[in-house]
């Protein structure tokens, strides 16, 4: 019998808001390990300051390596694009930091709608965190 580790709805769903201070202290590799470990436990993370595009790509790569077909099918990740730096910011190499991002297990979250002003994500009924 297949066991889905996320089918424990009686234990509720955990949303963790992660401060930028917490992530700032970690290297890119450490950030990705932390995020994937939490998401694999069935937690939904809201990162106050999201990942850079290169980190996001690495997260996708790491996620693919971690997929276990009966227990972890991947991540749902949504956030806003980094705003384009102004001319002055480019000259002084001041780049805007990544913006708020939500990351959770793909069998728990589903993006319903996303545009420049709103991201709507629904929790798939009957799922819950460990």
């Amino acid at each position, binding site marked *: 019998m297949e066991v889905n580790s996320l089918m424990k709805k009686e234990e509720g769903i955990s949303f963790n808001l992660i401060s930028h201070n917490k992530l700032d202290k970690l290297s890119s590799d450490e950030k990705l390990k932390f995020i994937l470990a939490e998401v694999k436990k069935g937690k939904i993370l809201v990162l106050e300051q999201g990942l*850079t*595009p*290169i980190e*996001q*790509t690495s997260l*996708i*790569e790491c*996620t*693919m*390596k971690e*997929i276990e*077909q009966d227990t972890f*099918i*991947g*991540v*749902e*990740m*949504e*956030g806003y*694009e*980094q705003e*384009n730096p102004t001319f002055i910011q480019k000259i002084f190499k001041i780049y805007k930091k990544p913006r708020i991002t939500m990351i959770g297990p*793909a*069998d728990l979250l589903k*993006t319903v*709608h*996303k*545009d*420049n002003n709103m991201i709507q994500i629904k929790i798939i009924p009957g799922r819950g965190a460990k």
Partner: protein
Amino acid sequence: MGLFKKGSLSAILQKIFGKKHAKIGIYGPPNVGKTTLANRIVRDWTGDIMGSVSDIPHETRRAKWKKDVKVENGGSHLTMDIVDTPGIATKVDFKEFMNVYGMSKEEAKTRAKEATEGVIEAIKWLEDIDGVLLVMDSTQDPFTQVNVTILGNLEARNLPVLIAANKIDLEESSPATLKSAFPQHPVIPISALTGYNSENLYSLMVKHFSKKRKKRWR
């Protein structure tokens, strides 16, 4: 030749006028028509095809590479190595292949496993290309995290990108939505299936991917 050997003259001209050879990756989420477009380009300029296409996601699970595809645009040309990459996704669920596409459990699991490896391979190819033809489905919402992530990655690497708004032969397509979603990049509406607007695509590819770049151009 007198003053210059042929090779060094070519290098000098290239330095002044831009590149004449580039490795171009065809990227995008699964099922947006990457291989259909790769087949279109390769067939139009070499008579060959790149790979098989299917309505089932993750049909291309290994990158395919066609070297020396010479694309002409009036008096100029660009010779490209075209790399058709597997679709990039943040999740792969074998049950989708069973429930939606009627595969057996064994087939579905094998396809899912190969699909995850394909995503990794596609990402690794980003290290080794000179420009990207990013294919999006113009009938779908363009603000997917995969599109945003790929574009952000290419911008961070300073790689030139051309967005192909594919499937405009379908009634529900809206290339204008795609253009307004990513105004910082050139967007060309096409139908890889019918070949609609492919001449303009080739013209734009030659112009856009021939430009001199400060970084990464060889």
